[in-house]
């Protein structure tokens, strides 16, 4: 093996690849070749670094230089200056927005300071397509330890003690789930990895699979060992081609190394993993729907009980865990339950990965200990609100979560706290909204998603969400009545109360939480026919100031629906009933006589 002096890590996550990180990689290799440095400097494509806002990321090791927003054209300078001459390229360093200073090492950046990466521990550090790098970072050690030193029950005991809860959204204790599957005797059992990440904006599972696939494969084998399953299935959406490709490579390598397949590490334990592709239905993230989809049935949920641990895939005991949950497992087994429990809160141990999105400066993927407050996440890690605007709300838990406000900012994030304040953890989506966001429109946006993604099996979800969406549309168009608000609340509560699966049981959350936190905004839309945020086009009013209008008729001529009338050289007027808010008059007026209410 070559003894490299330096390593250049290039982010190979989907986001950075979309910003030409592959070309950066190619240019680096070519440039090093030209300079005759290929034997001394190694270029590695890693998984996601998380700081997607500033991608593509290039990191130089061992000096820990973290270059941001790198373009393929920057490669030559990096090689000439940094690699050859040993001088950092300052213009590619991250700039601290508070004091405009350059920061070279990521651990000093606000984005990384408060993060603790367990599930993402290897993302951005190793080449996910090279099992040796994973092994160098302890991959398959936990499996070896379990197979050699521990009984299945002991593994489950560690998992139970650790307090690890399902990261897919439900927050059910993973160890307990394993125990249920272990206790149901059967000739065949299955371990299923749920990689049907469906929340809009969430990409933690994808990043883990793209950046550190072996952590998941190892965890599945551990789960198989402890529950008595020798077959694993990864249900992954077909829209994740890179994750699929890397998983395939990882599975092949793991088999070659004897970490998967027959008689793993000579222990007599067999474990095989297969990939199953989903078509991307949100509801297939629900474990019973996922199982039906794998069985070739229509992807829709069935009533629990029976739980998959009793009757799952092909009616056999099946343990389903999400990618992030699995990614935590090997470390827990290596470092122990006590270590894991020391991180996080009393009832939610460990860390949680969040996908930060929306009107926030540092969009990206972060991992923080449970108990970190929303304020720390949004303002310290997230760098605050974009363009100096005012924070208005944060939607946690994806489309089925709730909308939290200023008063919730100091809530320590964990499963139970989020539910207590009317939202939920979900799979870790976090969308930040500022003063320009209308909360009614926001609720409508999420409902549009759930309407689209409902499987249609149960009536309240199938029809109720559609009616919720229609009511919200009516309100955002200024046609809502106070009675509609009553209907909206009743319907939301009934849908939650009567729907079959988690999708319908949570889909009205954005409505209910905005109604309780932003009631005034609903009233404003309904009684004043006004949208302060200015997002509801139908509620905008274009008004001509008679003092400023000179009667040039330019606005009347440009209006496509003849909504503007007035004599020449006399102030004009806009007929609000006809106006379609196209903005044409506003753009045309040279006298700033037209304003928008």
């Amino acid at each position, binding site marked *: 093996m070559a003894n490299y002096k330096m390593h250049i890590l290039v982010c190979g996550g989907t986001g950075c690849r979309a910003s030409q990180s592959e070309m950066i990689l190619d240019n680096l290799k070519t440039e090093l070749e030209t300079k005759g440095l290929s034997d001394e400097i190694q270029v590695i494509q890693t998984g996601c670094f998380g700081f997607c806002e500033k991608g593509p990321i290039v990191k130089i090791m061992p000096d820990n230089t973290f270059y941001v927003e790198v373009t393929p054209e920057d490669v030559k300078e990096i090689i000439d200056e940094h690699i050859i001459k040993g001088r950092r390229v300052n213009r590619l360093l991250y700039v601290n927005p508070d004091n405009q200073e350059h920061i070279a090492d990521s651990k000093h950046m606000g984005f990384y300071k408060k993060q603790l990466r367990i599930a993402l521990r290897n993302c951005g550090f190793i080449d996910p397509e090279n099992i040796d790098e994973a092994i160098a970072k302890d991959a398959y050690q936990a499996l070896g330890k379990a197979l050699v030193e521990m009984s299945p029950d002991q593994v489950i005991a560690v998992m139970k003690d650790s307090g690890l809860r399902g990261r897919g959204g439900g927050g059910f204790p993973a160890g307990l789930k394993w125990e249920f599957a272990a206790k149901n005797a059967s000739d065949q059992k299955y371990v299923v990895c749920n990689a049907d990440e469906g929340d809009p904006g969430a990409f933690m599972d994808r990043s883990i699979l793209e950046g550190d696939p072996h952590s998941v494969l190892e965890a599945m084998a551990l789960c198989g060992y402890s529950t008595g399953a020798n077959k694993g299935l990864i249900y992954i959406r077909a829209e994740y081609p890179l994750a699929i490709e890397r998983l395939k490579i990882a599975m092949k390598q793991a088999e070659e190394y004897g970490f998967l397949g027959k008689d793993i590490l000579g222990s007599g334990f067999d474990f095989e993993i297969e990939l199953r592709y989903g078509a991307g*239905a949100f*509801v297939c993230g629900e474990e019973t729907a996922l199982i039906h989809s794998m069985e070739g049935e*229509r992807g*829709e949920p*069935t*009533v629990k*009980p029976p739980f998959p641990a009793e009757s799952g895939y092909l009616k056999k005991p099946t343990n389903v865990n999400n990618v992030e949950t699995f990614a935590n497992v090997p470390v827990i087994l290596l470092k122990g339950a006590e270590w894991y429990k020391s991180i996080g809160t009393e009832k939610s141990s460990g860390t949680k990965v969040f996908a930060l999105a929306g009107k926030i400066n540092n969009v990206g993927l972060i991992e923080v200990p449970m108990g970190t407050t929303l304020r720390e996440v949004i303002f310290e890690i997230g760098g605050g609100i974009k363009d100096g605007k005012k924070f208005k709300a944060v939607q946690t838990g994806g489309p089925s979560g709730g909308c939290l406000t200023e008063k919730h900012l100091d809530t320590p994030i964990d499963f139970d706290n989020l539910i207590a304040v009317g939202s939920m953890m979900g799979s870790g989506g976090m969308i930040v909204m500022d003063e320009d966001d209308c909360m009614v429109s926001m609720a409508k946006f999420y409902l549009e998603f759930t*309407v*689209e*993604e*409902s*499987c*249609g*099996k*149960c*009536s*309240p979800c*199938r*029809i*109720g*969400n*559609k*009616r919720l969406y*229609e*009511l919200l549309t009516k309100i955002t168009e200024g046609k809502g009545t106070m009675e509609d608000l009553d*209907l909206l609340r*009743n*319907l939301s509560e*009934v849908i*939650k*109360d*009567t*729907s*079959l699966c988690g999708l319908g*049981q949570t889909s009205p959350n954005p409505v209910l939480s905005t109604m309780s936190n932003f009631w005034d905004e609903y009233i404003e839309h309904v009684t004043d026919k006004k949208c302060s945020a200015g997002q509801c086009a139908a509620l905008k009013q274009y008004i001509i100031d008679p003092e400023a209008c000179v009667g040039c008729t330019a606005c009347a001529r440009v209006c496509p629906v003849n909504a503007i009338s007035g004599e020449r050289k006399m102030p004009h007027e806009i007929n609000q009933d006809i106006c379609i808010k196209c903005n044409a008059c506003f753009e045309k007026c040279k006298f700033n006589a037209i304003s928008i209410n």
Partner: protein
Amino acid sequence: MAKVNISIDGRPLQVEAGTTVLKAARDQGITIPTLCYMELEDLCIEHNPGGCRLCTVEVEGRNNLAPSCVTKVWEGMSIKTHTPRVINARKTVMELILSDHPFDCLICAKNGTCDLQKMAQDLGIREIHYKGEQSTYKEDYSPSIIRDINKCIMCRRCETMCNDVQTCGVLSGIYRGFEAVVAPAYEQDLEKSPCTYCGQCVAVCPTGALTEVDHTNKVVRALADPKKTVVVQTAPAVRAALGEEFGMEPGTLVTGKMVSALRRLGFDQVFDTDFAADLTIMEEGTELLGRLSKFLKGDKSVKLPILTSCCPAWVQFFEHNFPEMKDIPSTAKSPQQMFGTIAKTYLADKIQVKREDLVVVSVMPCLSKKYEAQRDEFKVDGNPDVDYSISTRELAHLIKQSIGDLKNLPDEDFDRPMGESTGAGVIFGVTGGVIEAAVRTAYEVHTGKDLPKLDFEELRGFDGVRSATIDFDGLPINIGIAHGLGNARKLLEEIKRGESHYHAIEIMACPGGCVGGGGQPLHHGDSSIIKKRAAAIYEEDKGKAIRKSHMNPEIIKLYEDFLGEPMSEKAHHLLHTSYFDKKKSTFIES
């Protein structure tokens, strides 16, 4: 069975462990409303997707409401079935369902027999607060069944019948969310699918989403046409169910009143399909004995078991699913078609009416018979042997629209010759009946002896697959019976694997046989009705003077005067058919 203590609406009680809240409440006389749930207890069919969410109840300690149809009781469970929260949820869900349902109840085929309508009435829905977009799908007209799926409420009962019971796999949920609906794959028309038209989907549809193609107007027009002579045949299962449409107890035999009603409707001759059933036995029984004796003589080319071929849905089923075995079923036409052929040849000649002026109407418990009647091989120069096939339900409508009631009509008898029938013909209407009728004749023809006992109890019953060995005077004949196409599939797979030990198998597509046909009065989930109809059929058999097909004097005369003998060349030409490979005929339009 272990018991658990629960309380329903504050009243403590003991119920069987493992039972559902719905059943526990029903046993207490509390009817929790349901729409999607269906249990056909006697046929061992349960459908509980937990989809409609009308049956929700409050369970102490549970955050959300529990669907009672799928929630099992547990020790100490406290259930409240009608709190304001529960009633509000049910009414809201009902309003939602209605908000996506056409408001054309008064002109809907299911008006008055619609479960959705009844449930809305029971829940006291007087206003729909949640209005909005309604689903629009294209209507689908097949030869037998109309799908107006704008009326589909996604109860999925049809899917259970089509997939789990009949294993036809035609209907399933397609699309997502608000657009979700039950339809053939890719929303193809039924006619392009392997649908057998058994009509079991129609029989369980709670709304007007699935109904039969209505031929009553065509029949009325034919009856009013002075140039036409219109004769009618009535299948055995009709007389055991028609009364239900007029408020009579299930299982009331209305043979005489039915004949009387048909005469009053203006049919020139009122005949009985039972006559043709006797004829079928003569042909099919002879075919069985022929194949059997060749087989016993060691002829390897003979295919056994012989399968009955009276049921058109079953024929359609094997043509689609087992075309490689299409030479195994009997080639005998079904009674409906034998009747049509004989009516348009023998009878037409006898009453001196030209084929094109003779209209043959059949009243059937079946929707597939509509499809069968229009198959090309049952036409002569484009003129079908059976012009119109109407269901029991359609006949009830005809009677209601033209003469009102049935109850007060006098009993009358069928016309001759084609109204003469035996008890063997009657029992065609129930599972096991065709083979029992065949045994009665085949035994006597084969052994030359009189049967000591005509009631073959061993062939009767409602188990999905049954078998019996009948002693043909020293020759053991193995008989298999299946009702429901899923059960039929099991026997066919057995034959395919070369493991079948049967000499003859009777198959009927509908659970219970024709008494449970897709054209019968709706049972609304009460499968005991089907059993009562079957009992009525056996009762009619018992009351018949002649109970063996080969003893039917009009059949004997028909052979003497016209056909010669069973399986004669003429009989073969008129009374037998052949089958087609339809496996490739279903296609998906891109």
